[in-house]
């Protein structure tokens, strides 16, 4: 079946003889959908397929997972809410938006959770499983009634859907099948291509029995038919035919594939959320490419294995999250000291300590930069999109090799689990790491033959005849001989630091989004790119003279920042990490603890930079940032 996505499609489900309601067709440039269920009811699968089929049909897509903290939290509680938000648009979508316009909820409690978080639009359309209203258990009926009263404060539009009852006509286990029924509802509302959905379901169940596929498809079609017969609205989000082939994946999958494209052959890891899914994916495919995932006994060992493998030749990488980064600190310091190239990926989550394991935060920036005792200069790179997650691995590996240095790649839970289509990378043989030259070394070559200006030296690798030496974490000279004298230690520090300066001079100043000068400049980094730029664009439409820059290199910092900052009346970082609010009790300008990038930029540029940060455990919404922009534009110039 083919259809032009932009024209109203004919009904696609099996035709029904029943009278259908009058329909309004709403044509919008973008729309946001949420599917929420109890954990284990499969709302995520439903939403993922919806997101993928939307991407396949040419829409811009951004998805964000709604994840409970436990594997099996008690059912029918707000804490159990599990699912996804999917924002689709005619143009590329770069963030999860502000509010959900359409919600499919499997019970009222999980819906309540989203409501209380302010996740739903004032006029959201809510398709809700209605068996609870008339449930045998009086406690459940009461909970339903209470919830409805609370939800009734808003002008949501409720559509009661007998999901369980319907599903029972096809399956004995409706709890496991409702998600496909829900997918059918959404497929009809948004005119999604059923054939493409069937393909995706087939992919999903390719390792399972045919019967499972059949029943899932039957449920999908059932939901589609029910919607066709009962709903009085459809929503059109026109799609634009992509001019380039695209792929769709989450940031962790992108990192994993990026590591392969970078020619890396060893990933050392220890299970930690939200980094682990990258190594799940790698464990599945890496060996075919001649690489392997080593699950070490702990985070420290994982770092050690990566360091050992890098020492022995090709650059290896370790992937972890905040608590793991803390444990890897000593090895990172050792790699810096011994100048062993190494890539460490930190998929950030809420901290400190165990913090918010499944939720996003940008709280590891300063730890990534300065976590190692002593002076341990290294590169920190933060991808801002799924595509950049893929590409950053090649760049990181090449930098690590060229400078014999550590590169920390800072991703976060938002990138890790969010899904976004991006242009298909044209993989290139030159991205792949070359095998190390194991030929004999020139006679008299010192293992740290530092170029006195640039601190660079050629790496000698075990196996090279004549190159024997012992690398050491102790202070050492060019021969790698241990030396405690002031000149030896100071020279080593200078050489390791100089490499960063050399690299900084190779970086280009960041591009400014919006006008080159104005009242307010927003500075961000990492996964907030899309939300910040959308907020800036909306503010500019309101006439606010605001622009933004988004940094990828945090260490060394990209050049020209001070010059860019000078052209704005005010500079403010927007980050997902903690900062004191200036008006809070006890907080003064002197003792205020600021956002981490803000802290860094103030130190580096001596500009009085403001910050606006939040730690909600979810991505920032563009609307929130827009309000922050309005609130922080210098007053005298507000129009």
């Amino acid at each position: 079946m083919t259809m032009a996505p932009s024209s109203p499609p004919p009904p696609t489900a099996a035709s029904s003889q029943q009278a259908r309601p009058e329909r309004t067709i709403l044509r919008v440039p973008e729309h946001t959908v949420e599917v929420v269920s109890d954990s284990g009811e499969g709302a995520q699968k439903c939403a993922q397929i919806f997101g993928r089929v939307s991407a396949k049909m040419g829409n811009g897509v951004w998805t964000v997972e709604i994840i409970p903290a436990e594997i099996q939290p008690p059912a029918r509680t707000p804490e159990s809410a599990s699912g996804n938000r999917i924002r689709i648009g005619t143009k590329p979508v770069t963030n999860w938006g502000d509010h959900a316009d359409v919600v499919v909820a499997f019970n009222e409690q999980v819906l309540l959770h989203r409501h209380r978080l302010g996740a739903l639009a004032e006029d959201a359309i809510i398709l809700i499983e209605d068996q609870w209203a008339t449930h045998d258990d009086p406690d459940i009926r009461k909970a339903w009634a209470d919830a409805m009263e609370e939800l009734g404060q808003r002008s949501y539009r409720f559509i009661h859907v007998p999901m369980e009852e319907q599903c029972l006509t096809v399956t004995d286990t409706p709890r496991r099948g409702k998600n496909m029924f829900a997918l059918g509802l959404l497929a009809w509302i948004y005119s999604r291509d059923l054939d493409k959905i069937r393909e995706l379901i087939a992919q999903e169940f390719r390792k399972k029995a045919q019967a499972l596929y059949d029943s899932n498809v039957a449920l999908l079609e059932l939901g589609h038919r029910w919607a066709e017969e009962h709903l009085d609205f459809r929503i059109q989000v026109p799609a634009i035919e992509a001019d380039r082939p695209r792929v769709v994946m989450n940031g962790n999958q992108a990192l994993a594939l990026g590591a392969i494209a970078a020619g890396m052959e060893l990933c050392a890891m220890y299970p930690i959320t939200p980094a682990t899914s990258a190594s799940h994916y790698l464990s599945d495919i890496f060996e075919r490419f001649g690489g392997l995932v080593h699950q070490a006994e702990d985070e420290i060992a994982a770092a050690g294995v990566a360091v050992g493998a890098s020492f022995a030749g090709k650059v290896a990488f370790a992937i972890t999250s905040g608590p793991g980064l803390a444990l890897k600190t000593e090895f990172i310091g050792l790699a810096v000291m011994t100048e062993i190239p190494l890539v460490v990926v930190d998929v950030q989550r809420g901290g400190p300590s165990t913090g918010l394991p499944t939720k996003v935060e940008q709280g590891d920036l300063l730890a990534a930069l300065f976590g190692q005792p002593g002076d341990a200069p290294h590169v920190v790179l933060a991808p801002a999109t799924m595509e950049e997650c893929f590409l950053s691995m090649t760049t990181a590996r090449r930098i690590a090799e060229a400078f014999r240095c550590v590169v920390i790649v800072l991703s976060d839970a938002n990138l890790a689990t969010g899904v976004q289509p991006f242009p298909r990378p044209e993989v290139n043989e030159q991205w792949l790491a070359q095998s190390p030259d194991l030929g004999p070394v020139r006679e008299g070559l010192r293992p740290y033959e530092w170029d006195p200006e640039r601190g660079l030296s050629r790496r000698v690798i075990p196996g090279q005849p004549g190159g024997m030496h012992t690398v050491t974490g102790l202070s050492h000279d060019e021969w790698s001989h241990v030396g405690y004298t002031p000149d030896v230690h100071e020279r080593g520090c200078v050489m390791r630091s100089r490499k960063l300066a050399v690299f900084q001079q190779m970086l280009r100043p960041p591009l400014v989004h919006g006008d080159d000068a104005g009242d307010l400049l927003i500075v961000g980094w990492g996964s907030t790119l899309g939300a910040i730029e959308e907020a800036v664009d909306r503010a500019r439409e309101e006439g606010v003279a605001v622009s933004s820059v988004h940094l990828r290199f945090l260490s060394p910092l990209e050049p020209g920042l001070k010059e860019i900052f000078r052209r704005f009346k005010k500079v403010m970082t927007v980050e997902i990490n903690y900062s004191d609010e200036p008006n809070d009790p006890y907080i003064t300008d002197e003792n205020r603890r600021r956002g981490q990038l803000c802290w860094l930029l103030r130190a580096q540029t001596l500009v009085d930079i403001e910050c606006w940060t939040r730690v909600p455990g979810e991505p920032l919404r563009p609307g929130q940032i827009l309000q922050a922009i309005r609130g922080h534009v210098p007053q005298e110039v507000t129009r």
Partner: protein
Amino acid sequence: MIDQACSLLSCGPDEDREWTMADYESAAARWCPGCGDHAILTAAQRLLETEQLPPEQTVFISGIGCASRFPHYMNTYGFHGIHGRALPVAIGVKLRRPDLHVFVVMGDGDCCSIGAAHWIHTLRYNPDIVALLLDNGVYGLTKNQTSPTSPKGKASNTQPRGALLPALNPLSATLGVTNASFVAQTGDWVPAHLYATLLAAYRHRGFAFVRILQRCPQYTTDLFEGAVRDPGLIELLVHPDGVAVSELERLYKNQVRHDPADLDAARRLAEPDGKIRLGVFYRNDALPVYEETRAVPTRSHAEKLALLNTELDRHAV
């Protein structure tokens, strides 16, 4: 390494030279006079000479402590890392470069205390690596603190009224770990036995764990003094599959024939009962070696690109 692809450019044509002891010597060792480490260094160099291991194909990896200075004194590649973490580094080296001969040198603090997790788990991985535990029962480099293998009652700077706990027994601990494949004990003051044990360890296919009782002339002078003076305190475990040094048999009258294939007997012999036993406690050459279990095909660039494109197809929209 069996049937694993590599690059012909890294197999080195320079093999016809003969390596001598001098080829393995680097800087003069700076351990205290009388330190047992000197003898261990010599035994290791002798082993390399016997086996004619090219220095560039050999890596000594250590942690932190007196013992961990070892790589600096070998003219091979060396990695002097951080406290307790030599084993993970060694696994990383061996995983990607099974062609290299990898030796790990640890002290008792390194292996049995701060790095204990790696010790247990490396036994499980069973990489083809030789690990030497240079056990002097004390933290020497940091100047006399109690170590896990300090005998109960031994005074130190951290436990001045004597070590509070009974000493950890590295042999029993090692023999209790699933997949342990070679466990031996020797002493620095019996050079012939020391050498023979290192040789057997090197020739074992798998993770060879050798505890070397090592004298510290500074802080644990009396720890092995009795055994050094009175060979009667020593019991040699002898077996053709283990270590048997005929020249020692006149001096060391106490001998037990122990088949290193017998794990139960090994565990019994490892229990402390006043005797110091030297020899191979356990050996099983048939256990899978980690780097071989994890061997992966070598892919050419063209193959990798083709596979990558296939994988990207799966994500195509």
